[in-house]
């Protein structure tokens, strides 16, 4: 009986780890091995709502239909940074900024570990010499991890 329980527990635990896309283990690993410096949604929301402190330039590097429906107030739309034209727009936008400017990038299209947009954007800014760049950690998508959490949202172009 004990052996059966052990086998069952092992199978269930393995099945659980496989079933959930972006399982905790994957997310933890992604967090450890990922190059971008991350900022949690709660942290960014607190920063944006605080009357004190420097506010970052927040740039959305995802898709426009998402931006129109909901975006972080004050954020600017650049476009999916997995595409060259959006990366060009990003470089153009930041070229006049001091290299110490505080910039936060976000996408929210899909789970962070699968997002094709934030890493190229981050890498692009780092390559330009920007040292104070963070990426908003979005575990699943912008809806679940920002909007549904009640953080500030704006709509429109």
């Amino acid at each position, binding site marked *: 009986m004990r052996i059966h329980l052990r086998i069952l527990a092992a199978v269930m635990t393995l099945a659980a780890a496989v079933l959930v896309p972006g399982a905790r283990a994957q997310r933890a690993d992604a967090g450890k091995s990922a190059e971008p410096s991350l900022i949690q949604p709660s942290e960014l929301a607190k920063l944006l709502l605080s009357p004190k402190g420097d506010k970052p330039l927040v740039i959305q590097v995802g*898709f426009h239909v998402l931006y129109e429906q909901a975006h972080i107030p004050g954020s600017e739309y650049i476009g*999916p940074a997995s595409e060259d034209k959006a990366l060009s727009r990003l470089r153009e936008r930041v070229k006049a900024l001091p290299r110490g400017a505080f910039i936060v990038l976000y996408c929210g299209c899909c789970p962070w570990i699968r997002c094709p*947009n934030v890493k190229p954007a981050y890498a692009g800014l780092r390559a330009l010499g920007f040292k104070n760049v963070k990426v908003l950690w979005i575990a699943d998508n912008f809806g679940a991890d920002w909007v549904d959490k009640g953080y500030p949202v704006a709509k429109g172009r």
Partner: protein
Amino acid sequence: MRFRTKAAAALVLAAAFYLVARRASAPGRPASARRPAPDFTAVDLAGRTLALSDYKGKVVLLDFWATWCEPCRTEVPAFVELQKKYGAQGLQVLGISLDEDARPVRGFYARFHMNYPVALGDAKLAESFGGILGLPVAFLIGRDGRIEAKYAGRTGAAVFERDVRALLGRRAARH
């Protein structure tokens, strides 16, 4: 005792993960619990105007996606297979791309041998379906035009096929 507690926790966790990982409300709820899918018109890649209402009487699998979205791309071959396998039985897959323009979508369409209509979507269309704040999102719409299920995030081909078959198998008289 300690091991039994761990085993029980693993079972509960596995069950909870399974329920979350399905990410779909299962089809089969009564009509009163299923809202009508909002009608819309869009122009597909071939320049034809399509309307969701054109497909009433069919089971529609409506997929919001984008060419650069990796989880979206992995679902497309499954949709192509479903259309091939169940099209004659009344399934219609429709793709709504949220790419910025049609050019990459046309290339993707050809490379992946997509066999169903694909049109570009906009915020108005996305909002009519309750907001598309992440990708991919798919909706399964019954023959009566009501939304049977919503799939948020990457969903396995087996889940789609199971639910499509369940709807196709319903007697036409019920709808």
